[in-house]
């Protein structure tokens, strides 16, 4: 039974849509607040370009909502290839462009896009296709190993830009997809245990006991220690996290009011990152605990709505896609907000729907579009 366009439109998960749109619209106000005192016009205009990107993102959203997600699975290898090409092109001089010391832009006609963001979406589709293709062998170690190997291709290319934050997203996305696809839990668990041990060592060994790791230089060790105690170097390396904590902490329960964030206005929050990676610091300072919790709550609700779509998916493919999207967004949200309030180390990674950034906004909205497609084409097709 085929759904008409209207039927599909009416079946959209409107709650998810509203959550997404309210975050996206609020982002314009947040970005304005973060940049309105900036000396550079380009920064001051960023809220405008964010406004222009929203309709483009919406177009992507509806485009991916209306098309049955299974269509993309047929073309998964091609999508993966295109994304890979983009990641390679970024490193080609003349096509890839340098910005803030990282080579992560390519220009296609009037657009400049970040292939790494597109790759995240393509990777979800590609990995879903791959895991489904494994059939009953999906549980085995070979699946786990091959996925890790597959993952290293884009991760390596992105790390070379360098963009640690974006590269880091691929790991949890892969793990969640494998987990949902049915890879034996012990492989995933053991890997995570290993990771946990590394973290524990860095805390108790390096930070508390002052142990040294062969091969790591002094400044790298200092960076680890600094994460646990930014006050070790408040003027130098601890500057960002310190200023972010001061901004958010001084916001108190209800904040200082819109456009009144001292830390941001006076430039203590670095102006280059306060509108993207550290946008949550601006929110926390101006809107306080109430505003900050709302943003976290809405982002969390969006993730749960993705999971709901996955749970009611018609097939495993839909479930995997939604979980992949969920995992990708989850990583962004947790790491971005977490670094602002010293839960995770600082990595340059945007907050979905809130941070400034056209490509990422369009990718995120398109991803939600994918989730909507799963929801629209769910099992119960009777209206």
């Amino acid at each position, binding site marked *: 039974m085929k759904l008409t366009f209207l039927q599909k439109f009416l079946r959209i998960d409107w709650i998810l849509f509203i959550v997404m749109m309210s975050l996206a619209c609020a982002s314009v106000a947040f970005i304005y607040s973060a940049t309105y005192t900036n000396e550079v016009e380009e920064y001051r205009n960023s809220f405008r370009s964010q406004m222009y990107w929203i309709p483009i993102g919406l177009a992507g959203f509806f485009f991916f909502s209306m098309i049955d997600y299974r269509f993309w699975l047929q073309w998964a290898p091609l999508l993966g290839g295109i994304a890979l090409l983009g990641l390679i092109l970024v490193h080609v001089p003349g096509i890839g462009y340098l910005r803030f010391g990282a080579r992560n832009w390519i220009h296609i006609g009037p657009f400049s896009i970040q292939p790494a963001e597109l790759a995240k979406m393509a990777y979800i589709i590609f990995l879903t296709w791959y895991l489904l*293709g494994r059939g009953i062998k999906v549980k085995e170690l070979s699946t786990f190993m091959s996925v890790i190997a597959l993952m290293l291709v884009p991760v390596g290319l992105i790390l070379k830009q360098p963009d640690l934050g974006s590269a880091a997203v691929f790991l949890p996305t892969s793990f969640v997809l494998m987990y949902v696809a049915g890879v034996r839990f012990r492989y995933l668990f053991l890997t995570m245990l290993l990771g946990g041990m590394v973290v524990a060592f860095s805390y108790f060994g390096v930070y508390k006991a002052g142990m040294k790791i062969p091969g790591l230089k002094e400044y790298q060790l200092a960076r680890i220690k600094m994460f646990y105690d930014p006050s070790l170097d408040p003027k130098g390396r601890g500057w960002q996290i310190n200023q972010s904590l001061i901004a958010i902490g001084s916001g108190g*329960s209800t904040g200082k009011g819109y456009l009144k964030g001292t830390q941001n206005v*006076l430039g*203590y929050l670095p102006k280059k990152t306060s509108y993207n990676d550290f946008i949550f610091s601006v929110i926390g300072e101006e809107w306080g605990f109430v505003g900050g919790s709302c943003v976290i709550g809405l982002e969390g609700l969006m993730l749960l709505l993705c999971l709901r779509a996955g749970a009611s998916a018609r097939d495993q493919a839909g*479930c995997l896609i939604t979980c992949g999207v969920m995992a990708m967004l989850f990583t962004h949200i947790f790491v971005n907000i977490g670094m602002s309030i010293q839960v995770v180390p600082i990595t340059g990674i945007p907050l979905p729907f809130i941070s400034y950034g056209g490509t990422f906004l369009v990718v995120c909205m398109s991803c939600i579009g994918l989730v909507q497609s799963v929801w629209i084409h769910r099992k119960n097709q009777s209206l």
Partner: protein
Amino acid sequence: MLLDDDRNIPLGRLSFLALMVLAAVGILISRLYTVQLAQGEAYTQKLRTQTTVATRLSPARGAITDRNGIALAENRASFDIDFYLDELQRNYSRVHRGRLPMTRVQVKRRGEIKEVEQVDIVKIVNEAIEPIARSLGFSNRPDEREIREHYRTQKEIPYQFRTDVDFNTLAQFSERNLGVPGIDIVARPVRRYNFGAFASHILGYVGKPDDNSEAKAEDDYPYETVGRQGIEARLDSKLQGKPGGKILRVNYRGYVDREEEVKPPTVGYSVKLTIDARIQYIVEQAMRGVGRGAAVIMDPKTGDVLAMCSVPSYDPNVFIPKISGDNWKSLIGDPTSPLTNRALSSYPPGSIYKPFISLAALKSGAITKDTVINSPGVVYIGGHPFKDWSPGGQGAIKLLDGLRMSCNTFFYQAGVRTGIKAIDELGDIVGFGQSTGIDLSPESKGIMPGPDYLKKVSPRERWTEAYTANVSIGQGAVQVTPVQMCILMCAIANGGHTYRPRLIQEVVDLDGTQQAEYPTCAPRNPETPTLGVKKSDIEAVKAGLLAVVADGTGRRGQVEGVKVAGKTGTAQAWRRVSGAKVQDNKTWFYGFAPFDDPRYVFLVFVEGGTSGGGTCAPIAHDIMNNIFAMEKGKDIQLTYLTPSSGHFHGVVEVQNPLNAQPAGSTPSNTGANAPAAVPADTTTDNSNDNGGGEPSIVPEDDAPSIMPKRRN
């Protein structure tokens, strides 16, 4: 592929993921709670610390005015280049990614010298001013030691790199102040003494506080200037304004974003002196040439000090904002000690003590005004011969002639008859050997000798009548200050009231509200407010003093049209010049006028003069003449005075301006009249109102011929 197969939807694993999401949301929100609500205060405090800078706004000192409101000490603006060391350091660390230059400094702590690692503030400062200094051609760098000390003790208060920058430099500097946060031009109020070396010993001066200054302002930092001498020091707490403050909001680069809070500084209370600037000016001019001396004018009816002058003087403006080393050395090294206030220093009085002995003798009943005492050229007391200044003596005379001719043998006998006990009892009332209570320090107490005093200085000797005889003519150990003698003369003039010399009329705030009271006619000692001498006895002494000026030793002190009473005095004294004794007489003339209704008590004291009548009386004449002319409407224009310089040239003898015969007591006219004559009129008014008689200058016997300048 297993499409369309809902058995493959792993609901369990999805639920686990949902739990993970909820847990993550929980972690983030609980952490947000900790940061914003539990530790919010601490972060707010951190924000305040890093975004605000508190600076001090200097208060202005109150003015010092004369009794008519003429400002003698005021404030003017000094443009200073300030370093905010704290801000310079923060800026440096910002520019250099948090790194600060360190240096090892030796610090003395509890007697031990330790090496301490410290921020190398000098390097930071030098780096900051390098571009500016080069373009302005500032050759000398800031004093390293001073900066380090300032940095260590009062980082929050700006360090004044340059004070009183001239306009050119100022303009260039503001043009090229390449936006270095922490270097600023500040207009600061500094002291200005409007008439230069005018009443400098009364006003005193201000200076920077010592390192371990006792005086701290309200904000717990030392004042930038404190009173060092004179009224400036005595009334420092009243003259000081309260410092204000500014809280500035700074951005991450240290630039001032805006002023957050301003508390303006206040102006201190102004002090109104009893001094009449015009009279002070007359006195200052009259005393200019004498080299070393003092003059005091008081109002006998109230005890108000109308003028007080000490020469040599100094210009207190050289202390503002900071005295140069050379200036200080020349002031301190000057053997005539220009910083000393001679009006409050003690000297042997000589014959001007005689009116006091007269009062004591009359009070005790030892003599009456009609007692006749035979006064030959020499009397023997306790076996010692005591000579009169004139070989033949004055014969059988009464008190009036004793005073008029300043007869020593008369007073030896009168004093011995009175006895040291009665003399010292009256001396206690007048306040000899005690502080006068004037609002000025340091003040010498002087010496009033007696048995008790002798026991203290040489316990083996016993007091004899010979000592009393010496005291009776103001010789021996007797030491008085000019102001003490003025108290006595005031008491004689006003019928016996010993008033405390009053220098301050009132202290008022900016609105004119009185902040401290200084009553007139306050007795020096409330227990003995008067001399306790009968009216008729005081009249007898007054009559004697009138005779002194009318046809006695003080004839040169006469003023045309005004009856003047007074007493001369010449105390023989010596001063050591490279081992040799050189005569350095202390000469005096003091008295009151007009005789029938005394309004002025005057005292002129000159060190190295020939005699009271020859040296001091003409100066007193000059002063009183001008004061009465002023009363009649003569305009006294106040001008900026250069310091009157000190010298040891000695005598300044001036002929009686009224062409009276020189007093016999003075060894005058030993040489021919000096050829040069300088007009005695010391005011800016050049009209000669001295009645045609021009004072001539007579050199001392064995001193080289000199032309002391009466005017500059």
